[in-house]
């Protein structure tokens, strides 16, 4: 599965010497507004190396951020730089960039191999080189068997992987993936996540966007949280989570004899509040979510309670955002 690192065909690569003083991705006070809607406001960001997850709800500005990076749209204010170049004015840095757009629509009439090799040729590769590279990346994403099938017949996960293959064909230093896991089944998710992690290990700069925290968690620890066009958090996921543990968290239990269960749980040091929204429902408030979550099943079983549901409604991006933004979601 590992790509051939000494591969041929990196057309623009020979001329390029890494300039370590310049961050791969650099945004300085960037804003983008459509009329009166501010899609992004005053984002400053510098990234080099490793996998970074960009989290945000739908419409938070993740895609706008990527479009700015890919020179699709022009910033209303501020400067965007990729490898030190303005992507709106100069497409040259894309020789070292791979982009996976969120759009579902693809060129359904091509085979995966044709698709990847055609776009490889846009990097200045010759036909035979492009084909060789295409075979390599399709193998990397695990699509060798279906390389000669038309994309129109592909499942969603295969399409996503084809898109990723197309983005990797020039062996890029920066890979931007817009919602690569959306709509994929668990198997495809796992494959794609492995691919992304692999790329991170190879020292590439990878940007992945998602609106599902747990997905990003499985890929990377470095995250950026975008909300309402603003950067609300940037850093290690664990650090953010640890701080998240300090705020109240809710666990919801549904069962027959819920009052008895409440008695047993009340003594637990992590619990600081209980409430009963209905006869067979129990809400537990805790400051130490992780700890309680680990011990809860044991308590339930040891005391012989009957539980039909356990749910933690807060454990998602939304609650994280509530915390980070002070409750203004």
């Amino acid at each position, binding site marked *: 599965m590992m790509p051939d690192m000494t591969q041929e*065909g990196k057309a623009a690569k020979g001329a390029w010497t890494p300039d370590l003083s310049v961050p791969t991705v650099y945004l300085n006070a960037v804003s983008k507004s459509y009329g009166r809607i501010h899609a992004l406001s005053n984002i400053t960001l510098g990234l080099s190396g490793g996998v970074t997850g960009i989290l945000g709800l739908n419409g938070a500005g993740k895609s706008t951020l990527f479009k700015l990076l890919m020179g699709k749209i022009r910033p209303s204010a501020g400067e965007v730089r990729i490898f030190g170049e303005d992507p709106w004015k100069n*497409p040259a840095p*894309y020789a070292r960039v791979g982009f996976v757009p969120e759009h579902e629509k693809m060129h359904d009439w091509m085979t995966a191999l044709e698709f990847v090799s*055609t776009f490889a*040729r846009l990097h*200045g590769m010759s036909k035979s080189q492009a084909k060789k590279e295409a075979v390599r990346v399709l193998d990397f994403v695990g699509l060798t068997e279906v390389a000669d099938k038309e994309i129109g017949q592909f499942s969603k996960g295969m399409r996503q992987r084809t898109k990723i293959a197309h983005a990797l064909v020039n062996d890029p230093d920066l890979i931007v993936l817009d919602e690569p896991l959306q709509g994929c089944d668990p198997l495809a998710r796992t494959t794609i996540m492995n691919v992304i992690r692999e790329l991170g290990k190879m020292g590439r700069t990878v940007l992945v966007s998602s609106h599902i925290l747990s997905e990003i968690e499985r890929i990377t620890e470095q995250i950026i949280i975008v909300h309402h066009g603003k950067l609300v958090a940037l850093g290690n996921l664990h650090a953010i989570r640890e701080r998240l543990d300090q705020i109240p968290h809710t666990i919801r239990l549904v069962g027959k004899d819920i009052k008895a269960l409440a008695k047993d749980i009340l003594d637990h040091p992590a619990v600081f509040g209980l409430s009963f929204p209905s006869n067979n429902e129990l809400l537990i408030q805790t400051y130490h979510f992780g700890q309680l979550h680990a011990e809860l099943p044991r308590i339930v079983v040891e005391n012989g309670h009957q539980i039909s549901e356990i749910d933690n409604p807060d454990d998602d991006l939304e609650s994280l955002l509530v915390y980070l933004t002070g409750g203004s979601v």
Partner: protein
Amino acid sequence: MAKSQPTSIWRGLDRKAMAVAEFTFRQQRKRLSTWVVMGVGLLAMTVLTMFYVDAMSRSYEAIDQDGDSFDSDGDGYPDGQERMLGTDLYSSFDHPGLFDPPVAPDDPSVWVNEDDIDWDNLAEGSYGVDDDGDCNVEGRTTSQKDANRNGVACDLVVTSSLFGEPIVNSDGYVDEDPDDEAYAKEASHRAFVLAIGKFGFVFLLGIFVPLFMATGLIRDEMTSGTMHFMLAKPIARSEVFLYRILGFLGLAWPYMVGMIAAVAMVTGLVGPSDGFYRFSDLGVWFAVLLASLFAVLVYSMLFCLLGVMWKHGIVLALPFAAWELGMILTTLGAPDAAILRFSVIGWAMNVVDAGAAMAWTDTGLLVATGMWGGGYGGPLEGAEALNTFASNTGLGLAPLPTMILSLGVLLFQAAGCWLLGGALFKSKEID
């Protein structure tokens, strides 16, 4: 590794161009609508050509323009024979049968189409020949024999009018009964070549093929979101614009060449000629080919530009097509109207007309003599059609400079559309 890398930036550009063009070409090829459009175009041109073949193979009625196959006095001798031999046309008691020795009466059909127009020596200022000898007969006065007063009896003079149109001035009874079928076929043939060249290839195919296939080259990809793949590559947007057009031309140009070659082949073989093929038409066909290829180029650039400019680019393209229809109709009647300079089709028509002027130098004369028709009974069959579809080169220049200038203007228009389209595309935010 070094071996496989592009040795120059040009090689890299070349590879990108080929990749995008090939991609576009294959994309168009995989679409059903492409084949429908091309098939309908083929069908339309085939139908027109079939009408032409039918017109060439049917026989035209031989008309006795001067009426001298008629026997006015009923003595069995046609008027023409009587006139030539100097007997009284209107007296049944005076006819060549009373000569010594008596002359047998001619079959009336001898006096139909008996004095054809002498194409071989008919050029401006030259003289026709009174083939049947009914002009220079005894008993006619000198002034009757020289009605056009050029000092030569029984001839035909072609002069130019103030507007450069040929005027036929005959002495009377000279070339007065042309061969209707020969004329009709020659005139219809030329008229058809011009009509299908101008309206069929340059106008119908030249506008509708790009309208169907080039309007969406960029716009469709932008709407569906697939443009994102291409724009995430190290390639400038104006390059994408140009290479997409190249890919389209890779399909449209061979199609036009094939169609024109096929029709040229059929008309060359079927049309009236001395040999087995009308080589003299090739110049016209070449001009038609040039004009339609350039028209397809300009229109595809323009429609693609309109598609880039606005989501509803088609709304702008349709009135433009209607404008071009108006302009091509204008070229027929007034090829030198100044307004034509603001169209694409006007310049393309100049190319065709210049080619026709070079290949068929005597078209104007053919029209003039056909409209004159021997001096009796109006235009010959085919003359009006040829008059409709043939026109002068419009710019007031000689044919070759006209052609070069017009092709240059078309190229300039295409380049302008590309630059504008590229610039617009570059400044477009793509969601």
